[in-house]
C-alpha cells in the first residue's frame, strides 16, 4: 500500500519537475514547482516525518512560492514564453547531466547500505528537544546561528531590492 503511494508520488513529482524545467512560460514553471513541492511534502508524511512535511508545506509551498509568484509578477510578462536555448546546447546539457546521473546511479546501486529495520515515527516533541538541547548531539548553536542568518538575509534582501533608481538613470 505504502509502496504504491510512493510510486504514485514519485511519478507525480518527477513529471512536475520535468515540466518545471522544460516549460517555456515561467509562470507555469512556478506552478509545476508547487506541485513538485507538495508531492515532496507527501513523501515526508509517507516517511513518518510529519513535522518535516508541515515545514515543507508552510515554508516552501507557502512562503517561497509566494516569493516566486511575486518575483514573476514583478519581472515577467505573464503568459509570454521566455527565450529558449539552442537545441545543440540543450543536447550537450542533457548528455552531461545523463553522464553524471549515470555515475551517481551506478554508485548508489553498487553500494551496500547497512539498513536498520526498526520503524519509529519522528515526533515533533523529539525534534524540539534535539533542536534546543545543549547537550551531546544538540543543535542549539546552529539553530541560533540560523536565526541570525535569517534576520540578516531579511535585512539584506530589503537593502538589495530597494530601489536605486537615481543611480541607474545616471548610469544609463
Amino acid at each position, binding site marked *: 500500500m505504502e509502496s504504491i503511494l510512493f510510486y504514485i508520488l514519485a511519478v507525480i513529482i518527477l513529471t512536475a519537475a520535468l515540466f518545471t524545467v522544460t516549460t517555456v512560460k515561467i509562470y507555469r514553471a512556478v506552478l509545476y514547482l508547487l506541485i513538485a513541492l507538495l508531492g515532496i511534502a507527501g513523501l515526508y508524511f509517507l516517511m513518518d516525518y510529519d513535522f518535516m512535511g508541515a515545514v515543507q508545506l508552510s515554508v516552501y509551498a507557502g512562503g517561497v512560492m509566494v516569493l516566486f509568484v511575486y518575483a514573476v509578477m514583478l519581472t515577467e510578462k505573464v503568459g509570454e514564453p521566455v527565450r529558449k536555448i539552442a537545441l545543440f546546447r540543450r543536447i*550537450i*546539457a542533457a548528455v*552531461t*547531466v545523463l*553522464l*553524471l546521473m549515470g*555515475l551517481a546511479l*551506478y*554508485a548508489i546501486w553498487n553500494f551496500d547500505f547497512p539498513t536498520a529495520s526498526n520503524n519509529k515515527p519522528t515526533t515533533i516533541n523529539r525534534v524540539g528537544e534535539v533542536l534546543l538541547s545543549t547537550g551531546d548531539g544538540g543543535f542549539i548553536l546552529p539553530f541560533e546561528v540560523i536565526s541570525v542568518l535569517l534576520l540578516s538575509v531579511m535585512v539584506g534582501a530589503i537593502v538589495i531590492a530597494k530601489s536605486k533608481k537615481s543611480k541607474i538613470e545616471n548610469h544609463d
Partner: protein
Amino acid sequence: MSDYSWVIWIPVLPLASFLLLGLFNRYFRKEPIAAYIGMLSLGIAWVLSLYTAYQYYFVSGIQNGKYIPYLPFRWEWLQFSDHLSIELGTLIDPVSVMMLVVVTTISFMVQIYSRGYMHGDSGFARFYAYLSLFSFSMLSLVLANNLFQIYIFWELVGVSSFLLIGYYFEKPSAIAASKKAFIVTRFADFFFLTGILLIGYFAGTFDIETLNSMQTLKWIGAHPGPVFMGLSAVTWALILIFIGGAGKSAMFPLHIWLPDAMEGPTPVSALIHAATMVVAGVFLVARLFPLYYFTGDGFTLRIVAVVGAFSALFAAVIALTQEDIKRVLAYSTMSQIGYMMMALGVSGYEGHEGMGYMAGMFHLFTHAMFKALLFLAAGIIIHAVHSNYMKDMGGLKKYLPVTHWMFLFAALAISGIPPFAGFYSKDEILHAAFKYNTIIWFTGFFVAGLTAFYMFRLFFRIFYNGERTYEHPPKENSKFMLFPVVFLGILTISAGWIFTPFSLYVSPTREPFSYEVHYFSPLVLGSVLVALTGIGLAYLMYYKPTDYPSRVARAFGKLYFWAKNKFYVDEFYLFVTKKIIFDKIARPFAWFDRHVVDGMMNAIGNTTLWISEKIKFIQSGRMQEYGMYFIYGVVFLVMVYYFFNF
C-alpha cells in the same frame, strides 16, 4: 685621570656637527653659523686630542719603559663564534694618539680656512657637513681597535671623499673625478675586505691588539694556513690588506684617482688628499706592523718597500712635468706617501732597528703639516688668480707676501733642508733605507733631488718668473685663510726639531728609544746637497723667464712627453676596462643576460599571455557554462575516484 673616557668625544663631536648641519641644512643659510658649528666641534676635538696626547705621552702612557695600550671604550657588536667577534671600540696607543693630533689639527685648520675659501658658495653648510662627516670617519678609523671597524670607517672615509671631490656637482669633470676616486678605491677595498676575512679565518680574530701580540704571531708562525703560490694564507691576507691600503694611499698602480681628485675644493685637497685620508694606507700598515714584520719573514714588507720606492720615483717624475699646481702637489703627495711606505717597508722591529717605522710615522706627521700648508697656500693663490695653471701665474710675490714666505718654508721642508720639519723625517727614512738596501736608498735619494726641483719649479714659477700684470690685482684679503696658513707655517718650521727624536713617542715595539741626529754625516750631507742641487737647478731654469725649460724638455724627448702624459697609466686602465673587460667579457655576459636570462623570462611571460589569449573565451560570463565546466570537473573527479580507487 687616565681612563681616557673623553676620547670618545673626539669622533662624536664632528658626528654631531655633521648631523646638525646635514639634517638641518636649510636652516643654516647664514654662513657664519654653519662655519662656527663646524669649527667649534673640531676645535673642541682638537683640544681634547692635544690633551690626550699630553696625558698619554707625558703623564700616564709609559709603564715599565713601554707605552701601554688603553681601551677606554669597547662594545661587542657582532658575535660570530666563541673567539671571533666584531667589536666597536677605541684603542689608544702611540700611533693612534699621533694620528688623532694630526687629523684634528689639519681638520681644524681646514675648517677655519674654508670659512674664507668657500665664502659666498651656495652649498656652504653642505660643505661643512661633509667636512665634519669626514673628520668623524677619519677619527673613528684612527681610533678603531679592530680591523673590521677600520674597514667600516675606511669606507665611510671613501664616501666622504667621494662627496667632497664631487662637491661642485654641476661640473662634469668633478663628477667624473669623484666616480673615479670611488671606483678605484672601492676596487682596492675589495682586496682589503678579502684580506680581513682571510685574517679573521686564519688568525681567528680581528682585534688589532690580539693580532699584534707575540702569542698570536707565534701561533700564526706555527699555523700559517694553506700555501698558495708559495705564500701562506696569512701572507696573502697581508698582501691583500696592503692592496687596500695602496688604493687609499694612491700607490702605483692604483694612484690614478688622486690627481683627478684635485677637482674638489682646495681645502678638501689639503685635508683629505694630502694630509689625512691618503695616509690611511700607511697608517694601516703601521697598525699591523708586527704582523707584517713577523709573517713570512717580512715578505710583504719587502713588497711594501718596493712599491713605495717605485711610487715615490714615478710620481716625482710626473710631478716634474705637470702644469696644474694642484696636480703637481697631488703627485708630490703620492711621492711622499711612497716615501712613508718605503720607510715602513725597510724597517726592522726592535730598538734602533725600528728606525724606519719611526721615520715613516714621523714623516707622516711632518708631511701632513707642510703638505696641508702647501695646499692651503695653493688655495690662496688659486683664489687670488682664478686659475690652476702655472702659466697664468708669476711674479706673485709682491701681491701675496705672506703666502710667499709660508710657501717657501713648506717647499724647503719638503725638500729636506734643515731645520725645517721635512729634513728630520726624510733623513731618517733615507738612513733606514741605506741600512736596508742600496737601490732603495738610491731611489729615495734621487727622489729627494727631484722633489726639491719640482717644488722650487712650482715656487719660482708662481712667485717670481718675471713681472706680470693682472686684471684684478691678487690680494690676501681673508684672515680666515691666512691664519691656518701661518699657523701651519710655524709648525712646519718648528715641528721637526721639537719632536726629534720622534722615537720617544712612536716605535714599533712601543718602547721609546732615543737617537742622535748626525747633521754632518755623509748621508745627511749628501741628501741636503742633492736637495740644494735641485733647488739650484730650479732657480736657474725658472727664476726668470728663460728658454731653458723647453730646451731641457726637448733634450729628454720621449721621456718628457711620457711623463707629461702621466706615463699613460690612465689610458692603460681605459684600454683594459673598455677594450678588454667591457668588450671581451662584459659584452658577452650582457648578451647572455639579455638574450638567455631575459629571454627565458620573456618566454615564460609570452607563453602565459599566449595561453591566456587562447583560453580566455572560457570565461564567458555565462553562468551555465561555468556550471558545465563544474560538472565536467565533478565527473572527472568522480571517475578518477571511483575507477582508479584513489
